[in-house]
């Protein structure tokens, strides 16, 4: 007997076929992706829900038998399984994030957030997948620096981070009315940091940049103890006073065994827009000198320039304007950073379970 059967009949027949491992029929498991019927033939596309290296040869056989019983002599079965998950990074909380970089300083007001945002943009422009986490819950500024108009959405119990300029963002600013303040003690901060890591759908990232609040307090400690950070970038202005506080941040990271990826000198010098003369407002080269004295990499210097401030206030980081010398300064810092990240991530201890 040979005839053309309908897809519905085929589907009925497939309800008799069980996944040998799960003992449930493949229709209710949702494996059946497509049924195509023709004269004396049927093609059935099956998509497994979990990666299966063997491709389940038994299953193809049972499907063929069940459909052949309808009187279809030529039955083709295509079984696909989803791609295995990407290799896991060092943290269980954010398994698909390769490198985590804290941007920190001792003192406030040295331009940490601006540097963090522009570094994220510069890395993204070099082709990396980048996330930017604003861990400064007291003074969150990342969304306005990045021109954030979107908000995170809840999808299946997790937060889908908004994407600005190709970068996934999360910040306390999204969860607070504009004029409200976070007045919290340590345990609340710790919980928030954990949620920013584990409850946000970061997905696969090459770099997760973390903009830190100033100082060496609860948030820095929580972050450093929760995930094996790849390393920290220290931002400082050139004058002695800022540098001396930056060493305190460095001392904290050293205590926690977190590598210092390098130092960025921000507001390094000022070029007068009228006469073009350069003025070293805070002195110049202090950070470079200190970095070499203490044996840390120096990642580069970013000049003090009103364009950075104007672009930042407008929510369009300067690093997006590829041709401007300011964007190139950030690009150079990002390139130097990538080199340091490579060697630092090789030093993350590997846990091997046999």
């Amino acid at each position, binding site marked *: 007997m040979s005839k053309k059967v309908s897809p519905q009949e085929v589907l009925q027949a497939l309800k008799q076929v069980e996944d040998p491992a799960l003992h449930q029929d493949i229709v209710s498991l949702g494996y059946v992706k497509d049924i195509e019927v023709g004269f004396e033939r049927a093609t059935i596309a099956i998509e497994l829900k979990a990666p299966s290296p063997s491709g389940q040869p038994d299953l193809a056989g049972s499907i063929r038998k069940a459909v052949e019983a309808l009187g279809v002599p030529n039955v083709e079965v295509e079984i696909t399984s989803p791609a295995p998950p990407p290799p896991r990074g060092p943290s269980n909380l954010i398994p698909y994030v390769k490198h985590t970089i804290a941007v920190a300083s001792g003192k406030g007001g040295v331009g940490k957030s601006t540097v963090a945002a522009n570094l994220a943009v510069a890395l993204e422009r070099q082709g990396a997948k980048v996330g930017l986490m604003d861990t400064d819950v007291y003074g969150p500024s990342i969304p306005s620096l990045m021109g954030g108009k979107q908000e995170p959405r809840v999808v299946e119990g997790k937060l889908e981070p908004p994407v600005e300029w190709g970068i996934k963002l999360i910040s306390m600013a999204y969860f607070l009315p504009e004029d409200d303040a976070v007045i919290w003690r340590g345990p609340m901060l710790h919980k928030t940091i954990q949620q920013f890591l584990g409850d946000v759908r970061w997905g696969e990232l090459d770099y997760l940049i973390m903009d830190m609040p100033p100082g060496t307090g609860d948030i820095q400690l929580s972050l450093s103890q929760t995930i094996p950070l790849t390393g920290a970038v220290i931002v400082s202005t050139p004058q002695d006073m800022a540098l001396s506080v930056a060493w305190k941040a460095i001392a904290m990271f050293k205590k*926690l*065994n977190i590598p210092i990826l390098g130092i960025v000198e921000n507001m390094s010098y000022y070029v007068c827009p009228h006469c073009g003369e350069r003025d070293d407002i805070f002195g110049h080269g202090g950070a470079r000198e200190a970095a070499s004295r203490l044996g840390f990499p120096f990642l580069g210097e970013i000049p003090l320039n009103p364009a950075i401030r104007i672009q930042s206030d407008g929510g369009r980081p300067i690093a997006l304007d590829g041709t401007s010398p300011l964007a190139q300064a950030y690009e150079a810092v990002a390139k130097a950073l990538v080199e340091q990240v490579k060697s630092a991530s090789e030093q993350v201890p590997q846990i091997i379970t046999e």
Partner: protein
Amino acid sequence: MAFTPKTVRLHGDGDTLIIEWSDGHRSAYSYRYLREQCPCATCTDAGSSLDHEPGQLPMLGVKPLKPNRAELVGRYALQIFWNDGHSTGIYTFEYLRELCPCAECESARDKIP
């Protein structure tokens, strides 16, 4: 902190945890020794906590002690999840290095009064 492991190796069937350090040193700890040295508040307070662990009645036979898994704590310590249900001990790398039972480290320790 000077000492960082390159690899931490848990043997599924064996009874030792092996650390290869970044300076080339190798430490092999028996699970029982590590469990006895657990630095958490409960264990250090109770002395040798193994004697007081619930569910370890000797007449029922004692399950061989081993870690189910281990995780990094930041970049400075190891948290071991033991099959006796205990997991609150945070073993800093510095502490683990101090615990190294090899003859070389043993004799170095003896020299310190």
